[in-house]
């Protein structure tokens, strides 16, 4: 059957050929219609309007040409790397601080109760609002961008970690007691893995926020990074370059989330199972 679908004979009707196409090919074809329609509309809008419009909406061909050129000259790759460094530093700081503080908070109930209103306030505060404060302290630098990204994302990681530790299953804890496991060994072998799915949720949220805040900060104060390229290109009336950078930001974000998803499935394979168990229980 499959061999036939790969090498159809000449005499077959078109309908039979379509039916014998592999399913994945049909799925890819259908999946491509969305982007195709989008690019076609973009193209139509960019050439149908006045000269004014083409100034802020260059044609896809022009953007593609600029993207290709900037990439081959290494510019976009260099700036994408810069964005990645800004984001990764901020996110890793947030992850480290958030997980350690979250566990500590969960172990000291009084501390947790005392800090909860503050933490909730900080979690809801749009992190980008503190950019000027960080800029004042750390200057118009990459450190400021990473710092604001860390500040904006740390609360989600911290609160989810604390919640994961606080809502430990009592049966799991009793099991640990039965086998006489206490202290550090309990923390490492039972509490952390048990809270890991919830920590992963916090990290996923933090990842998105750190990325948004990194690029926003680059747009506002950056001297490097894709956000900086977007802002600078628009300021110097080179919209095609800005669009190329926007597409690059999208690609970086997609790569980061894809890597995060793969890492989560590898490190906490039981998280998905627990999410499914929660709905049936």
């Amino acid at each position, binding site marked *: 059957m499959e061999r036939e679908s790969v090498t159809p004979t000449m005499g077959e009707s078109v309908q039979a050929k379509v039916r014998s196409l592999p399913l994945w090919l049909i799925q890819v074809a259908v999946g491509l219609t969305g982007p195709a329609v989008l690019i076609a509309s973009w193209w139509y809008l960019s050439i149908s309007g006045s000269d004014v419009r083409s100034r802020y909406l260059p044609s896809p061909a022009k953007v593609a040409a600029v993207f290709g050129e900037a990439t081959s000259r290494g510019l976009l790759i260099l700036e994408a790397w810069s964005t990645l460094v800004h984001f990764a530093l901020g996110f890793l700081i947030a992850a480290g601080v958030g997980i350690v503080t979250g566990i500590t908070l969960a172990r000291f109930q009084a501390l947790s109760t005392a800090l909860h209103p503050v933490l909730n306030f900080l979690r809801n505060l749009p992190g980008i609002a503190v950019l000027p404060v960080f800029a004042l302290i750390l200057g118009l630098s990459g450190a400021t961008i990473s710092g604001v990204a860390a500040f904006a994302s740390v609360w989600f990681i911290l609160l989810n970690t604390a919640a994961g530790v606080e809502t430990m299953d009592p049966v*799991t804890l009793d099991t640990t007691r039965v086998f006489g496991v206490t202290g550090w060994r309990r923390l490492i*072998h039972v509490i952390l893995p048990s809270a890991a799915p919830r920590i992963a949720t916090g990290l996923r949220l933090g990842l998105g926020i750190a990325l948004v805040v990194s690029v926003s900060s680059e747009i506002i104060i950056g001297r490097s990074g894709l956000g900086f390229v977007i802002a600078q290109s628009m300021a110097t009336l080179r919209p095609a370059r800005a669009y190329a950078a926007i597409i690059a930001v999208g690609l970086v974000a997609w790569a980061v989330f894809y890597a995060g998803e793969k890492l989560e499935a590898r490190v906490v394979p039981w998280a998905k199972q627990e999410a499914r168990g929660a709905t049936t229980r």
Partner: protein
Amino acid sequence: MAAADERPRPMPTDTAIELDRAGRSFGHTVAFGDVSFSVARHSFVAIVGASGSGKTTLLRCIAGLERLTSGTARALGEPIEAPSPRRVYVFQDYSRSLFAWRSVIRNVAFPLEMSGVTKAEARSRAMDQLALVGLDHRADAFPWQLSGGMQQRVAIARALAADPEILLMDEPFGAVDAQTRMGLQLALLDIWQRLHKTIVFVTHDIDEALFLADRVIVLNARGYGLVLDDEVNLPRPRSHSETPVMTRYGVLRSQVLQILFEVPVKDPR
């Protein structure tokens, strides 16, 4: 049963557990009270009682997971103050008791790893326990990939890996279907006879208690004391086709049922 003595005295080594007027209250709510009995080593004792009669709390106190509020409890000659790997508790809710982040073999190896055995050694000893419950072929699966009956087998293998003297089992087969339950009961009897453990088994199922145990204890549903403590005296090995049709089985069964349902019901008409 021997009368209670005020002073603790050395317990004969053939006694695994001894409760003397033991009680546990939560504020004004009495879980159980004035419970005295002893369990001989290597014997299989079933504790039966209506739900709310405090049998799980009693078992948790024997495990050391909870403290008595009155009376004394001793295990293997020592007062029970905290959990000990010599008295391992098997929970009814196996899916929450097993560690989702560890494979089957690593769940079973957990008590060994925690007691300082090297990983390789722990793995090989855990494999022996898994073979004992017939699950060595699923060693590298995760618990949540197994059926309920298999998961409880893993939990039993993990309990055995700690090499306890006493197994405390809280309605371990309460959450599996009837057929699986019969298989688990036979597997447990087989393990018990091979390894000479002492087993205290809590259940609300009279048939399960009579099928498994040497002795059946019925707790008073109103919270104080025992209403029955009787030898089962049914020949071993037991079988699901023969044991329940024996005369002694029927007599015991109706005796326990009468006790459990003796609460007079007023006729509304």
